[in-house]
């Protein structure tokens, strides 16, 4: 590769003629818009905190697949269903028994899915004096059977009762189901399964109209009571959720600016600093040159990743300091040697000699006459190296060196690995952040390779 005749503007114009580059630019535009969206709607400093706050995600299902999963699967998975106070099909009737207020609530909903919800949570809000209300819960299946889901005494003003975690109830319902089936099935009967199952050898949900009945006894005139039933589904949103119930779509959006800025800042800074060192080395020659050359040789032997690992671990660096270390450990990379050769070619070119002759300062010659000329041929490798830094961040996350305060795609993948996604089959948890990384990589690669063909005309001819 030799120094070419292009200007940066000319390169860009030429780039628009490549279809592959246009595809790359379109993907890049999408990622940039995503990043801007993330930065505008959730300040960067808050995103990590929100992401790490486990209590914030309680209303989301655990390990839910993305919603579009249902398009490709014949077995339809249910989304989360919420019924109760303030929602449609919620009726109540109040009577007086033994001097106490007894309210009977009835919710009905239609269930048309093949799989079962993952959890059932009864969210209760109540105020009482003296004795807490008695809450009897019943379940009516489309077949008309009524199941007793046990009695609860909520003691807090707002309480979440995890009905699906009630072991006693699970045993009762299991016995009931086996009785109905007439045999012990080869699948486990959990509470959601028992509540929704069709009595068959295969685990399928009974479709139709379900009723949820709550009978509350209030022991005081002024007591209040309201509830909602949250049936956690198995699909959620565009990207599903992880084992901590976090919606992955948010993580993906918040990870976009981190990935882009990490890759671009690393690549641009490293390339520019390398160019400057190459220019100094090639232009001045002599002792400075040999010093810089020796430094590049040391950098060749320097085990890059172990060094980054060691520094990041011993000094507990956050992601941006880590970026700085990566830059420092790359500025004397082997590219300095390549760029230096170009500088040396340029140094003997007539216009630089003319500049020296009329007394231009060295600084002026380097910054105005040499650097702009070697910039165009460097641009392709600059763009092509961006993905490697994006993946480097992900790689460090895989090694367990991610910044706990930052949401990054690599960290999501690492958590998926640690959460056993590969073994338990939560494919979306790994595949969707991976797809984001792949999109980023492909976009820069498409642009970079097109640029390479533009500034290296010899490649284009072939």
């Amino acid at each position: 590769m030799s120094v070419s005749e292009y200007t940066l503007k000319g390169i860009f114009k030429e780039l628009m003629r490549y279809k592959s580059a246009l595809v790359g630019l379109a993907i890049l535009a999408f990622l940039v818009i995503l990043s801007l969206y993330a930065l505008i709607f959730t300040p960067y400093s808050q995103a990590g905190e929100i992401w790490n706050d486990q209590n914030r995600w309680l209303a989301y299902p655990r390990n839910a697949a993305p919603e579009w999963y249902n398009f490709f699967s014949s077995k339809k998975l249910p989304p989360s269903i919420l019924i109760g106070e303030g929602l449609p099909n919620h009726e109540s009737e109040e009577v007086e028994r033994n001097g106490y207020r007894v309210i009977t609530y009835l919710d009905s909903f239609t269930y048309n899915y093949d799989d079962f919800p993952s959890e059932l949570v009864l969210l209760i809000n109540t105020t009482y004096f003296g004795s807490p209300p008695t809450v009897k819960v019943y379940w009516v299946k489309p077949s008309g059977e009524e199941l007793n889901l046990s009695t609860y005494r909520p003691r807090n003003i707002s309480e979440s009762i995890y009905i699906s975690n009630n072991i006693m109830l699970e045993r009762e319902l299991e016995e009931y189901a086996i009785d109905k089936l007439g045999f012990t099935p080869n699948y486990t009967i959990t509470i959601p399964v028992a509540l929704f199952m069709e009595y068959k050898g295969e685990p399928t949900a009974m479709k139709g109209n379900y009723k949820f009945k709550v009978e509350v006894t209030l022991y005081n005139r002024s007591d209040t009571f309201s509830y909602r039933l949250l049936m956690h589904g198995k699909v959620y949103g565009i990207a599903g959720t992880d084992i901590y119930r976090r919606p992955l779509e948010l993580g993906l959006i918040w990870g976009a600016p981190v990935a882009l800025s990490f890759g671009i800042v690393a690549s641009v800074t490293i390339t520019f600093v390398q160019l400057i060192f190459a220019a100094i080395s090639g232009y001045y020659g002599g002792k400075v040159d040999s010093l810089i050359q020796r430094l590049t040789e040391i950098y060749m032997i320097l085990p890059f990743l172990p060094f980054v690992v060691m520094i990041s671990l011993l000094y507990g660096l956050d992601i941006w300091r880590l970026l700085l270390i990566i830059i420092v450990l790359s500025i004397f990379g082997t590219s300095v040697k390549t760029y230096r050769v170009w500088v040396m070619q340029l140094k003997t070119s007539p216009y630089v000699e003319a500049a020296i002759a009329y007394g231009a300062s060295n600084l002026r010659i380097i910054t105005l006459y040499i650097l702009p000329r070697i910039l165009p041929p460097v641009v392709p490798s600059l763009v092509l190296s961006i993905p490697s830094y994006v993946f480097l961040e992900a790689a460090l996350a895989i090694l367990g060196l991610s910044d706990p305060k930052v949401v990054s795609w690599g960290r999501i993948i690492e958590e998926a690995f640690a959460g056993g996604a590969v073994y338990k089959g939560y494919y979306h948890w790994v595949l969707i952040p991976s797809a984001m990384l792949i999109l980023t990589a492909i976009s820069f690669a498409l642009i970079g390779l097109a640029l390479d063909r533009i500034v290296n005309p010899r490649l284009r001819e072939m």
Partner: protein
Amino acid sequence: MKIPPLAKVLIKRGFVLFLMVIIVTYLTILIANAGGYVDEILISDIKFNVAQRVSANPLYKGLSIEERNKLIERLVENEIRLRGLDQPFPIRSLIYLWNALTLDLGRSMYMTSDTGSRLVRLIILERLPQTILLFTTATVIIFFIGLFGGLYLSRNFGSFLDKLTIYLSPTSAIPGWFYGILLILIFYSYLHVLPPGGMVDYPPPEEPVAYFLSVLKHMILPVMAWVISSFFIEIYYNRSFFLTYSTEDYVEAAKAKGVPPSQIERRYILRPALPPIITSFAFAVVLSWSGAIITETVFNWPGLGRTLAMAIGFFDVPVIVGITVVFAYLIAATTFILEIIYGIVDPRIRAGVEGV
């Protein structure tokens, strides 16, 4: 006796490379010691040795625990002074440098080797062959695919396969370990045909042949991941490279003379293209040492990289420092070996022409 030029070059290069290793090792020590870790490594090593010596010595059997602790403390202090570890850091660091260069890497804090030793050197040396096995295999396979694929496409440039390769070359922006994750999902989680990681089945087969086959089976996915990641770009670069050489004037002249195409390829294209190709191979091998770290972590391959990832998990600083030093040696050794090969294939170096 006259030293042949190649040997002269190699001696010079070997010397320079060793100097570089010394510098890198010293840097490692400086970085690790800014956190005070190197001191800790050595002193804990001494304490361990002294405590063992005292408890093994029947002379001290009669001492109470308190007296014995005092004795140990005194002996440790003596030992520290004896080894010069009470000196100021600049002098101390040179002692550490010597230890590291001679691979006297101290004792790990938590990790043990398979034989139960806590010596960092043993932990590392035990893992080295596995890393070399996996990544040399992968790099060599990629090298030959690139070479022959590139030659084939340069012969048929403009064909469908050629265009396909160009279009698919962006896939190489994704590193091998990342393909590894996807391959595990496909071949283990979904198809259940290949193991997701490790090096042999558990329990390891007794027979050597079965053992070999088991290792081979575990190597398929990591090697495949690396090959996929480099496949198209390797072929693409080599093809462009051969094409550049095939438009040289001397190739045209040879064609005009009527030299058969196979000979043109071997003598006029491949031969001059060889040194730069070997350089890129050298870089690939050097890079593979770093890439190995994450690939091994993804595939649970019991090599150096996996050990480093585990050391991170345990915060086992002596092991991390040790691995960094060993990696520096590895890279230097790779560079040196390739320097030799380079010398053999490049007639200018063989003849001792200066300024190459």
